[in-house]
């Protein structure tokens, strides 16, 4: 039973990887979100908020990390605290990264984001006290990994080549959209998690689920490192 569940979870994680939406360059015309951003000028608050929310909701790496973070959080107060820490982290590097033009290799940042997924899953499995004899501060880790997630967002926005006109306003709108998307995704995750927690299967399969999350994180790292060293994309 446990094996079947983890197989399903690993499979769905892999499917997410394959089905990930991308803006493929079609000939010499830039299409999709990137094409839209390059075709417009000036301040467009709601469209950029939409793009931010879309990025979060379709960003399976961010969602996996969030799932790991709230996996064993039961009280709404705790969920609020951790999600806020994550939001403060990624907002900071998103805004500063784009304004300062910090262009980090997107494969490396995304590999670190994959690492954050693995880290959190191991944390949920209780690996740190068992193997290293101490429990790292989960709040600090959430904040620090939030900074890396923001760096990943910033790298993608720099790739959009947004016009300088209205950059700050559009950027803030994008960031607000990211938070809206996070709340939407989190709500959906919490609804499913809450029901699952009420069943007996939760505690029986919690370890398997975190192993599956970890496997997805490892897949993310491998995928990104292959891209980095292979130069694909």
């Amino acid at each position: 039973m446990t094996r079947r569940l983890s197989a399903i979870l690993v499979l769905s994680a892999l499917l997410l990887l394959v089905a990930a939406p991308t803006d493929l360059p079609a000939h010499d015309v830039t299409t999709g979100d990137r094409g839209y951003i390059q075709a417009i000028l000036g301040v467009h608050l709601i469209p950029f908020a939409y793009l931010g929310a879309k990025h979060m909701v379709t960003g399976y790496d961010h969602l996996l990390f969030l799932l790991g973070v709230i996996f064993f959080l039961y009280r709404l107060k705790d969920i609020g605290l951790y999600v806020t820490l994550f939001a403060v982290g990624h907002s900071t590097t998103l805004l500063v990264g784009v304004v300062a033009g910090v262009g980090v290799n997107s494969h490396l940042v995304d590999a670190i984001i994959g690492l954050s997924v693995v880290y959190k899953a191991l944390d949920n499995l209780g690996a740190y006290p068992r193997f290293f004899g101490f429990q790292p501060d989960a709040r600090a880790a959430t904040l620090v990994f939030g900074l890396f997630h923001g760096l990943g967002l910033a790298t993608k926005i720099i790739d959009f080549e947004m016009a300088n006109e209205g950059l700050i306003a559009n950027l803030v709108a994008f960031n607000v959209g990211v938070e809206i998307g996070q709340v939407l995704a989190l709500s959906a995750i919490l609804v499913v998690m809450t029901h699952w927690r009420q069943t007996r299967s939760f505690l029986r399969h919690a370890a398997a689920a975190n192993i599956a999350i970890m496997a997805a994180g490892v897949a993310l790292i491998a995928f990104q490192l292959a891209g980095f060293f292979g130069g694909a994309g």
Partner: protein
Amino acid sequence: MIRSLAIVLVVGVVIAIAIVLPAEYGRDPTGVGRMLGLREMGEIKAALAAEAAAHAAADSAMPGTLARPGAGAMFDSTSVIVPPGQTRTLMLEMAGDARVDYRWSAAGGMVNHDLHGVSPTVGYRSYAKGTGVKSDSGVLLAAFNGQHGWTWRNGAADSIVVSLRVIGQYDELKRRP
């Protein structure tokens, strides 16, 4: 259990129809997309996708007949959105007697256009003008050193996307709001 899952499902469907459909495909059955400025995004994406498909079809239908940039020639393909009642301008930095082949088309409506050149010494000179035009192509011969290019005006109620392709002798393509 059933209730909260049903709420999630309903919210998801509402978001998909009212927000995602207009923003990604320019389809706006509820009118919410237009209110939020998201339908415009979908229309631009659709126009760009159609343009990309048209380019790809043209390339595969007539291999080798498309003018390729020669030595020192520049090539650009870009789009600009012209909001209702406004103008947008794209200019090429060109030397006198320089030659550029161009083609542009408007998606979402008709535009008024003015092909012209400007320079500090000569001032403004119009090469060609038109009203209610869907597309145009031809050769732009710069009469003097300076900026030469197109101004499009949108007199309609909806935004129009103008896609421009240029090939020839120029230094830089500049976008003027």
